[in-house]
């Protein structure tokens, strides 16, 4: 791929920083602010683009592991049972080989998320106390891993008040510590 994506993003940043931003009149602070935000987005995109598929696949794997765990744990009345059956059917229908683009993998994550949501709502209507407690713990564990991934992914936005404990991008993407799939398997 020539010119490659990094090359083009960096050229965009350079043009913005060295030509366009200095040409913005000082009284047009809105344009200056927008240009600064563009530059920030471009720099973040440059750090992210090459890992986007790996990141999205990791998010899918985590949602898949959560869905499988909740389906296994589900106990309760008719609403919980029905939601668990629906989630089970969706899990059984997933493709054996994942699609190869970020958006198509994200679509699968979303469809699993919808079914997980239904099971959560059902559990609060007629789930057994044991299921609700186990579900809560599972979602907190999943959330911890998925949030750490997401906060790492967007670390460069400077909006996170506590980035000290976050892993590097490489660790987040490759270490089993940030895979709910590995963690839930171990339990």
């Amino acid at each position, binding site marked *: 791929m020539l010119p490659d994506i990094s090359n083009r993003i960096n050229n965009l940043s350079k043009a913005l920083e060295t030509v366009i931003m200095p040409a913005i009149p000082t009284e047009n602070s809105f344009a200056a602010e927008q240009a600064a935000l563009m530059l920030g987005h471009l720099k973040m995109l440059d750090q992210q683009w090459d890992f986007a598929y790996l990141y999205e696949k990791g998010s899918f794997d985590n949602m898949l592991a959560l869905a499988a765990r909740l389906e296994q744990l589900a106990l309760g009345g008719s609403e919980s049972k029905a939601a668990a059956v629906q989630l089970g059917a969706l899990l059984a229908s997933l493709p054996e080989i994942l699609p190869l683009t970020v958006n198509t993998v994200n679509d699968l*994550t979303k469809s699993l998320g919808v079914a997980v*949501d239904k099971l959560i709502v059902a559990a609060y209507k007629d789930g057994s106390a044991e299921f609700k407690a186990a*579900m809560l713990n599972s979602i907190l564990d999943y959330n911890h891993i998925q949030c750490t991934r*997401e906060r790492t992914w967007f670390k460069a936005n400077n909006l*996170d008040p506590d980035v000290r404990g976050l892993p590097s991008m490489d660790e987040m993407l490759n270490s089993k510590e940030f895979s709910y799939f590995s963690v839930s398997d171990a339990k």
Partner: protein
Amino acid sequence: MDTKIAEISNMLIEPRMVYILERKLRRSKFGPYKPKTTAEIEQSLKQLFEAEGMSEIAISGVKRMTGGASKEQFLFQLQHSGLDGPQGYVLRMDPLEGIVETCRLREAELLRALAGSFPVPEILTVDAEGDLLGSPGLITGFVSGVTKPTSLEGQSVSGIGSSYGHYAELIAPQFLNILVKLHSWQGWRNAALPNYVIPKGNTAEAALYQVNLWAQTWRQDCVEPVPMVTLTEQWLRENAPVCEEPCLVHCDYRVGNFMFEEPSGEITTILDWELAHFGDFHEDLAWILQKLFGTWNAQGQFLVCGLMEREKFISEYQRLSGREIKPDVLRYYEVLNAWKCAVMDLSSAIIAGQRANNHQDLLITWLGSAGAVFLDQIEMLLREELPNAA
């Protein structure tokens, strides 16, 4: 919670806010939104003031204000036959959609009711439906002052993360005093606030009104499901605390939302009343205590809103107000506020940016990327609650 109570509690949502969310859905289809030019603003203002009965109108110096992630704001000078000379005003307008959807009419009602008792901007007029301005808008008097010290570096776009330096000592007592006074304000009993609902005292309504509003926002703007958001909604419903006496809460009382004079450090105005409603005072405290709005000082101590240590803030609030802060209720509202922020970031901000329906698409998309910070905060709070969590 039994089914009947659950059904009733689901209906607790302020009618004006139901209308505002429905209106947002309709307006979102008119996009993409193009930021207004100064010429367009000048023209719409003229139309509005003519309709208000003013004559010999001259509008000048229209200037867009930067920052602000929810409303489009402009400074301008107005001259008309009833004025001795030009006066400065601020126009605050709704884009087609933004990180939060609120009501200019409610904001105007409240600012009028608070005038004279609190440092708030004076209302000139409101175009609640945007019949003349093109978008719903509110015009207030210009107030002098700054939102952050002009001499300090490292400031952010929305004011979040600002540090006050030596001004902290001057501002902190005023910041607390105004908050305490707001929570004890009884002027609402005689004020015209037809678009507000006062939750019943000694019930859980104060919390449930908020849970329902933000749950409805999430359902309307949801881009993709987030298990933690759904779980938290259920938890908030099951654990809604009783509020003995609802009071006015600002709900965005924080760094960046007040102005002060330099070098005196005197607070001149409290800004951004759009999220204000009647609820539990713990809701304001929990909002103010969020890590996102604070900073760490040179000694590594966390400062609430960059102003004072958490324990000092809590003890001083209790001393000045005579109220008792209940740790479990405070924690409930910390969860609710973090959830509300997650809803704003992960649904409203993202969808507005996707549909290019905001004047600051780049900024709201940037802010949206902080959603996980709030999910992480909820998780930490629920783990502390774990024995009672489910």
